[in-house]
């Protein structure tokens, strides 16, 4: 259970970061975000994505505009805001720190194991 909790928490933090990164590349549709995440082997169902996107949008990190679709209702295309970019840069820094921290501790463990 503790492992599960930690896993969930880890994935949760990374998910937001990944989504922001994907969107920062340009206007993108929700199902395309999913496709990207799947390609990155971060398994997510679409139902999880919408609350996240809504929250990021409400925090001012994202914005969207409606675009006509050939197959069905108009789609919401998301794009990153200026504020979102700032947050992303901060997250980039944090991520590098984390990677360093994790790598360092992993190294230490591997060494002690060896």
């Amino acid at each position, binding site marked *: 259970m503790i492992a599960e909790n930690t896993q969930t928490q880890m994935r949760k933090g990374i998910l937001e970061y990944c989504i922001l990164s994907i969107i920062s590349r340009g206007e993108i549709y929700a*199902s395309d975000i999913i496709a990207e995440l799947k390609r990155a082997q971060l398994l997510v169902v679409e*139902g999880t994505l919408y609350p996240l996107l*809504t929250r990021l949008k409400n925090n001012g990190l994202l914005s969207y505009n409606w675009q006509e679709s050939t197959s*069905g209702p108009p789609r919401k295309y998301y794009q990153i805001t200026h504020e979102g970019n700032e947050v992303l840069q901060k997250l980039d820094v944090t991520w590098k720190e984390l990677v360093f921290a994790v790598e360092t501790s992993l190294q230490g463990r591997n060494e002690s194991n060896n």
Partner: protein
Amino acid sequence: MNKTIIININSIVFHIEEEAYETLRSYMIDIKRHFGKSSDSQEILLDIENRIAEMFSEKIHAGRKEVISLDDVNHVISQMGKVSDFEGETEEDIYEQANANSESETHSHIPYSAPVDKKLMRNADDKIFGGVCSGLGAYFNMETKWMRLIFVCFFLFGGSGIMLYIILWIVMPVAVSRADKMAMKGESPTLQNFKKSFEEEIQGLNPHFSKAKSEIAKGTAAVGSGVSKVGRFFLRLIAFFILIVCALTLFGLAIACIGFITGVLGYQREMVFPGTEFLNTPQAIVALIAGTLAIAIPFFALFQLMLRILFRTQPLNHYFSLGLWATWISSIIAVVFFSFIGAQEFKESSTIKVEKPINAQKVYYISEKDVRLIEASEVDKNGKKFKIELNGEDLEYALRRDISINFESIDSLAKPYIQYNYFARGRTYQAATTNAAEINYLANQMDNKIIFNSHFGINPDKKYRDQSVSATLYLPVGSRVVIDKSIEYKLRDLSFWDCQRAYDSDEEVKSTEWIMGRTGLQCTPRFLPIEKKSDTEQTEAAVEDLVKQAEKHAKEAEEHARKVEEEANKLSERVAVTVQ
């Protein structure tokens, strides 16, 4: 061949198979339940619905088909994710876990520990006819088969089970959504339970359709809808009947109220509500209106309810219904209050006794004068407007006829008289006495005729206080009395009817003859010899009586004499002894 349903997701129309629709519907209900708590639920739900609509459109374009199947829906759900997949990934859970994961733990570890209120619903997933038994089983924590057995037993006892089943079928709602089903089983609507229920359904899906039972179920479904239609028709019929009864009652109450009020105001005397005469006029009107409202408002409420059931009219305005409640309660209070006031006026009673001598006659002709009948010659008004008077007073008076007439015997030499007892009630003894004193009622003697008025009057302002008059004629023994039929109903101790029959006459007997005996009036038709015979019989009996008494006295005297003699003998013996 499958039935399809037309649905509309964000104004795009889809044809969808029935099973697929049910699955989609309960999925959407679950999703709404899941996101309902968060503040952005509206937007999230809209996004999800849009996406589902888009995926459906893609399916239709890709598959070159027109109808969404169950497979399509299941595919969409797997892509969108079950509610159970959202767990631990949404804002709520972040929040919950940040909060020292106390709440989420109670949710995940003991999900069934807190039973919620169960709802009595029909279980559509496990049914033979209407799912009544399985619903009852879930409600009473019984296996469905036992519940079915009970119903079969009921059916064997005079078929009462069928009636009960049909009533329950009509009354119990069917559990449609997953939330309903969980409420039916008494599970709390947590995510885990949703997940469990969903998985149960997925597992139960295939065996369910393979069961032969489902064939029976389909066959009876048509009968079932027929039964509930007939039931609904009867219920509507009953509701309509109640509606009409209520309307007529309200109408009748309105008429009665108006009638009684005119009665109180004195416009008519035929319709006076019993009891209102105890009160003065304004009080009586208020009491009548309050009484009418106290009865009418519940009927009105019932009327309104039936209207709503039958014609789906709008419920009453909130303030209006609140006002009705208040009016109803105050009417009841008013009725109780006026009943109390009315009763107070009758608390004490008083009787005034008056003796009036009458002239001794050989024969007394007792008759009644109807005061409501005016003899024009008597009044002599030259054919002009007649004025009704009673004892010289205007008949603005309310007429009362609580008059009784009795006869008592007195010594043959005593002077005859009439004793009047005027009786009335009141709030105090003083008031009762005043009320009694206000009764003005005396018989008129014209030579050998004694005429009693049919009524006595009481001032309308004084109101009814149970006033009554009892007149007792004390007549010497041997007086002859002729009683007119008109006064028959005023007699209390005598039976005019019995005496009338003693006449053996085909003609109508207008009056009866009586003679005052020592014990009261004796019926003596036409004062004929029979009565003399009876009179002599009476005297003979009296003589016999006297003889017997005399004999008794003689015996006593004899006894006494014997005793005295014995005493004397003893004494003389003693004297003799002492002398010796």
